[in-house]
């Protein structure tokens, strides 16, 4: 799948240390992001946000004239876009507070450059997925907007449960999703005892997306652990 359009997104980067700003800027530039505005304080960040209208903000928590949580609330009150915290504060309470306020991710320093770029790309993909709703598999395509599979030109509708399971797999495409996580995605907070139902749904999904359901190539079983969706380009 082509995600180059994501590299054009406007990113606001806020940290009180110039060296960190320089380094993150350099990491993002290297990954293809060039539309970046930096700020070293809350005041600067709010001014920049007004002019620049970012599509993603990366915020430090400890700023000279306030904290990142307050800044996030102000930014969110102006426009709704994804926010990622990049901070040295690694306490669980801080993370929970950030997520409670609606942060999309929380990275504790120190971090690997790749981890940062992977997470930014993931947030952007999730947040701006509407621009590319068709997911290409080996033998079919999934149109999540219309909740249907297109195989050999034929449109096959997905049931609600199949949709929930497939979207959970798609959000983690290329990675194993555990049986428990899939049951939770399909049956909510009390997903115990649905393992057999899950297997039945997986069989039906395979019939819809695979050319040969008994020899799946897109929806792979990882025995005892879970399933993996193989998506083109991932």
């Amino acid at each position: 799948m082509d995600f180059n359009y994501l590299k054009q997104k406007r990113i606001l980067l806020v940290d009180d240390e110039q060296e960190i700003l320089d380094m993150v800027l350099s990491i993002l530039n290297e990954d293809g992001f060039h539309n970046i505005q930096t700020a070293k304080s809350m005041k600067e960040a709010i001014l920049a946000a007004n002019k620049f209208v970012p599509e993603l903000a990366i915020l430090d928590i400890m700023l000279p004239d306030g904290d990142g949580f307050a800044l996030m609330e102000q930014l969110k009150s102006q426009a709704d876009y994804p926010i990622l915290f990049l901070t040295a504060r690694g306490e669980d309470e801080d993370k929970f507070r950030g997520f409670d306020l609606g942060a999309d991710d929380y990275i504790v320093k120190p971090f690997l450059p790749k981890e940062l770029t992977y997470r930014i790309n993931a947030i952007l993909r999730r947040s701006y997925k509407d621009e590319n709703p068709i997911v290409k598999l080996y033998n079919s395509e999934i149109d999540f907007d219309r909740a249907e599979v297109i195989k050999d030109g034929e449109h096959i509708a997905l049931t609600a449960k199949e949709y929930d399971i497939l979207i959970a797999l798609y959000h983690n495409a290329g990675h194993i999703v555990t049986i428990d996580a899939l049951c939770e995605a399909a049956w909510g907070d009390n997903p115990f005892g649905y393992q057999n139902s899950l297997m039945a749904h997986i069989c039906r999904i395979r019939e819809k997306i695979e050319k040969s359901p008994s020899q799946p190539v897109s929806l792979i079983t990882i025995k005892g652990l879970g399933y993996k969706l193989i998506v083109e380009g991932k």
Partner: protein
Amino acid sequence: MKSVPKLIRRFVGILLLSSILIVVFNFIALAIITAYQSPNGSPWITADETAEALQSIEQGYVLSDEMTTELHKENTWAIYIDNATGKSVWHSDNLPESIPLEFTASDIANLTRGYIDGYPTFTGEAEDGLIILGYPKDSYWKHMWPSWDYRFIENLPQTILAVLAANVLLIFIIYMVVNTKLLKSIKPIADGIQALPTEQPVCLKEKGVLSELYIKINRTSEILQSQNYQLRKKETARANWIAGVSHDIRTPLSMVMGYAGQLESDTHLSDEERKKATVILRQSERMKNLINDLNLASKLEYNMQPIKPKQENMVAIARQVVVDFIDIGIGDKYHIKWLTDNSLNTCIVNANKDLIKRAIGNLIQNSINHNKNGCKIFVSVTADNNRCCISVADDGIGATDEQIEKLNNSPHYMVCDENTSEQRHGLGLLIVKQIISSHNGETIIEQSQYGGFEVKLILPL
């Protein structure tokens, strides 16, 4: 306080036993004394013998020499009264002058049960009269009116029992009244001493008989509280210090990792230069992990990490950890085998999901770190006897029994207050133990059935 009723029971028991023993002892003593004293019929016998020894002759009466000697020995006088006249027809030589020689019937009745002029008298019946023996004034005491109401005698057993019971009750009441006050003053002391080991502050009213003890207990409590406060302060300061250092080191380490990461993937650099960047990056990562571990271990050690447990499915947690490891790619040398029985889908434990994930992750990472040549890692969850057991085993190089014994029983250098020269093992296993112990569980390190190392995490269901 549980010991006070026990104490009272014991005291009352001793009291009742002593009362009964005293009564029994008194009865025995009385029986022995009365056995020696009664029946004391010797004066009456002597009187009868005197009556027999008195011979009637022509000139009157004469007493045998033998009897006369005996009466003299006892300093006893004798008088013989004729039945018909009531007059004395014979008397011994030592008859005091104050003794009349003529007796009316009422005189006879009085002297029979009592005294004549203070002399205790005893009578013996002769053929035609009555022999009266008079003993010295202070030789006998006579009970003059030995008669009781018949019903009194009839009810005597019940009366004795009632009196005894009343006595016991009276003693008990006296005891309770006297001791209740003492027990009342002891109770706060006992409560205070019991509260001391639980680290609760003790504040007793410093008055009363035992006020000195109250004051001492209050002082002890104050000292303990102050020591605890100081210790807690020290521990908090230490944990905060570690948290502060680990926080401050994050930003500079970010720079090191950030630029090293960029250099590692910079195609303009030579392979050798990029390899150096890789080393910097890997070592920085190790530092990062060490800082995180140190911070968590210190917080767990000083109970500063809130556990906030919830009902969690251990099978799902362990499965997620295994999947996370497979997903990040642990290399071809390592294979993780999921050995949990397919029928076990849920195993609910009251736990903190993130901490349990951390513990299982640390164990899998340990197997990877200690088996550079690769190994198979076996992860399983089982549930039995109200316990959930998460096992992480490998078929790697393992450890000797001695090493396993040390890992199970020696304190980690971080929490050891003695010899710190010997660095026993990394923080990973310490954190696992701390996490499991904070969930009231048990960590068992042993030889794996697959030939390597195994750690079992036992959690109560």
